[in-house]
Structures are given as structure tokens and as C-alpha cells.
């Protein structure tokens, strides 16, 4: 082979990669709009991921006012422990779910409960009190101590059982099945029914 040709081939083999680098770079920046779109998409993905992933544990206050059997008029106070994105707030609405407790003194008894629930509600200015519940449900294990004119025999007795509670557009309905723990009680089981507002 001609020496000049050999030299040319060698030169091309060595130097071609250097010529091709700018060509490749040209291809990469050929569509700046597309690149910009990818960067914007990636950035949005990172931000949403960060918002959803950066969570903390929070307590939200719960309330309920209801008329129920056998407690009659009662007011419940409690709290729910939830895991929620740090950046999220419930001022105008959010969904939370988790373990919660509620203590509910009433005219003819007091009930305490622990359970699991889910709700969509808002705190308004209070920031931590779910004072409006748009939708929610809960299942709680409850213990109740009755007194006064409760229509039970004996009037003062302790009951334990399970309660289901459902809230929609602020209204709350609840049904419970409780078993008496008192040996002198005439019946074993009591069905509790309630209607009111809250969670």
C-alpha cells in the first residue's frame, strides 16, 4: 500500500473520534425545546417525589357531638395519629387515616374508644383540629360505663365492644355492639346507636 495512503488511514483512525465528538454534541443539542421539556419533567418529578416522600407524624384533634343510646347526649374528644407529607396542610381539605382514640362523656355514661379510621376533612384556622368532616369512617374498640337514668339494668354497669362510625357532610352515624362486664346485668348484649355531627 502506498505510504501516503497508509499515513492517511492512520491519521483518520486516530483523529476521527475527535472529529465525531462535536458531531455527537451537535446531535444532543439539536432539539433544545425537547431537552428543556425533559429537564422540566424531571424537576417536576423530583419536586412531587420530595413533597410526597418527606413525611412526618402528626396528631389531629377529633370531635363529635351526638345523641345516642344509652348515653343520650354526649360530646367526644380525641385525636388521630397520621403520617403526612410535611408540606401538606389540611386548612381547606385533606385525607388522613390512622389509629385514633376518643373519650366521650355523656349524660348517662362515658365511652372510651381506640380504633382505626379514615377521613376527609378540614381544620380551617385551627390547623390541627378536624372540625369539618366531609367523609369518614372508623372502627373502634370501646369501653362504656353507664350511670344515672340509662335504660339498662343495672343502670350503672360497664360494657365493652366494637363500634362502627360513618360520617358524611359533617353528619355522623354510629352503631355499636357491646357486651356487659357486670355479673348482675339482666342482658348480655347492648346495641348502641348514635346520630350527630363530627367523627
Amino acid at each position, binding site marked *: 500500500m502506498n505510504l501516503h495512503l497508509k499515513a492517511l488511514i492512520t491519521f483518520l483512525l486516530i483523529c476521527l473520534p475527535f472529529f465525531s465528538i462535536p458531531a455527537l454534541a451537535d446531535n444532543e443539542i439539536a432539539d433544545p425545546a425537547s431537552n428543556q421539556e425533559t429537564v422540566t419533567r424531571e424537576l417536576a418529578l423530583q419536586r412531587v417525589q420530595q413533597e410526597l416522600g418527606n413525611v412526618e407524624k402528626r396528631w389531629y384533634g377529633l370531635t363529635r357531638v351526638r345523641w345516642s343510646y344509652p348515653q343520650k347526649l354526649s360530646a367526644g374528644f380525641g385525636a388521630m395519629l397520621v403520617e403526612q407529607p410535611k408540606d*401538606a396542610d389540611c386548612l381547606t381539605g385533606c385525607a388522613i387515616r390512622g389509629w385514633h382514640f376518643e373519650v366521650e362523656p355523656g349524660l348517662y355514661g362515658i365511652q372510651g374508644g381506640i380504633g382505626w379510621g379514615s377521613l376527609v376533612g378540614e381544620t380551617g384556622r385551627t390547623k390541627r383540629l378536624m372540625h369539618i368532616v366531609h367523609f369518614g369512617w372508623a372502627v373502634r374498640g370501646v369501653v362504656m360505663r353507664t350511670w344515672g337514668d340509662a335504660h339498662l339494668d343495672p343502670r350503672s354497669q360497664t360494657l365493652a365492644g366494637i363500634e362502627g362510625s360513618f360520617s358524611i357532610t359533617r353528619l355522623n352515624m354510629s352503631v355499636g*355492639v357491646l357486651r356487659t362486664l357486670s355479673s348482675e346485668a339482666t342482658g348480655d348484649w347492648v346495641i348502641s346507636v348514635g346520630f350527630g355531627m363530627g367523627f
Partner: protein
Amino acid sequence: MPMKMTIILLLACAMLNFSPTIHALETDQFYTWGKPIEDSTEYLNAWVQLRIQSVLDTRVADSPMDCEAVVKKVQASLQNSLYHPMDLWISSSKLVDRIPRGLEESREYRARYLMTKLYRLDTARLLEPSATVEVNNIRIGADKLAHFFSQGWWYYKKWKKNRDDYTQDELQRFLVEYGINLELGALGAKLTGVTSPGDLEANYQGFLFYRQLCHGDEPLLYRQEGRWQFPDTFDFRDYVSPGWDESWNPNIYHKRRWKKIRPAMLTYCPLLHSPWVKQQRKFYRELETQTLTAQIVKEWVADGKLPDPQTFAITTVCQDGQNQN
């Protein structure tokens, strides 16, 4: 008996948790006229991308599920109870710009929006109203995204069940008519007195999305090294049209509600000829194409099966208002 009651109670609670999302939430894009909203398309796309990929990575992972089984899992994650998870995320996120945003704006919105003159206990007013967001310069109620994912799924299930019994055209018509009946029933007219052609547009696009997941030349869901993947190219821009904006694609209101809604709508008339609204409506006009849903709604109107939505259009209302004055 008590044991039976307990079981019934538990079942009821479980059913509530897994009940399909109902979207009777009302929205008002007139209220946002002239007010700036940053476009949130990328954030909304990102939310969908993360939600779906997270299901594929955790609940599906290495299991040998076929595509349809995977879609079921994906859909389940896009469904909550009465309120849709995306709607809820939007209302509490710092990233998605919207109207109303924050406590004060929310209060003002509730005091002025279209449903504000309805009775306090009216279901259309009792349910939390949806915020307006912007996708590809089109303003939509966040409830439309919920329609997209929830009623779109219902359409998809109908499509799967009936696809061998109908021709392609018949099947598309069947789905839209199914949607109209839903809007005339518990998801619209029966519950809130509102039938929304905008909801129908979102439903149908949602159906197309679910169909694209496993069907067509290039299904969206694909396997890579044995694991299911969702492409990062999902884009709401491919689905959202001006027909989703209720200030452009008017609702049909029940007579009793219309008496209360019309005066609220009249308050927006002075804005109709503002430069912002003129520009937006020009933009919509340029984008708009005749969709199958719009075509079938027109046919139903012509057959007298549906009141004409144009009766409730802002242009008609303002013109009537002027004539009365």
C-alpha cells in the same frame, strides 16, 4: 344476633373503604376568569407517574401478572372513597397552583361560586367544591381528573365486557351513552341537579387512557427485565381539551337549581367581554374539535332526551339578561 351485627358493621366499613369514587363535586371556572393560575401540567403528570410506578414496584413487583391484572392494581391505587386521591393531593399540595388556594380564598370562593345561592343543605352545595387548575392553558375543575380515572375505568370495564358484541363505532356510542345515563343518574342530575358534558369528555378520555395501558400497537405498560414499567411520557396534554372547562362547555341544570344558579352566573356577565376572557375563548375556539361525546350529546338534545346545554351557556344567559333589562 350481636355477632351478625358485628359482621355486618365490619363489612359495611370495609365496603365504604373500597367503594367506587363518586364525583358529584361541583366546580366553577367562571370564578377564575382573569385570575392568574400557573400551569400545573408537569406536577400532575409527575403525580400520576409516581403513583402508577409505585404500584408497579411494590404491589406488582416480580409477580407473573398479566397486563389486565396489573391495570386492576393500578386502578385500585387511583381510587379512594368519596373523594379522589388526586383531588385531595391537589387541595393540600404546595406545588399545584389553583383557585381557590388557602383559607381566605376558599371562604371567598364558597361565598361567591355558582352554587352559593343554593340552599345550605342542597347536596350540590354540601359537597366540598373542586378547585380549578390549569393544564396546557386549559382551566379545569380538579373533579375532572377524578372523572378521568374513575368513570374512565367504568367505561373501560364496559368496553372489555362488550367489545365482542359490537362494532367499534357502536361500542364507542354505547360507552358515551352509558356515561350520559350516569350523569343523568346518581353521579349527576339525581344527586346535585347538574349534568355535565365536561364530565363526559373527561370520562371518555379516561377510558382511552385505560385502554392504552394494555392495548394498541404500543401499550403504555411494558415489561423490562421482568418488571412492569410505566413510561415517563404520560402527559395530560394528550387528553385534556377545552371541553373539560365548564365555562366553555356548559352544564345542564335541573330547573329548581337553575333558578338559584342563574343569578350567580349573571354576576360573571361583565367579565365576558374582558380582554382576558375574549383571548381565552378565542384560544379554546382554535383548539376545539368535535368530539364523539359532544356529537352524541347533540343527538340526544335533538331527540329531546336531554335539555340543550346551550340554554345554560354564559353567552345565552348574558344575552337574555341584557334583553330583560
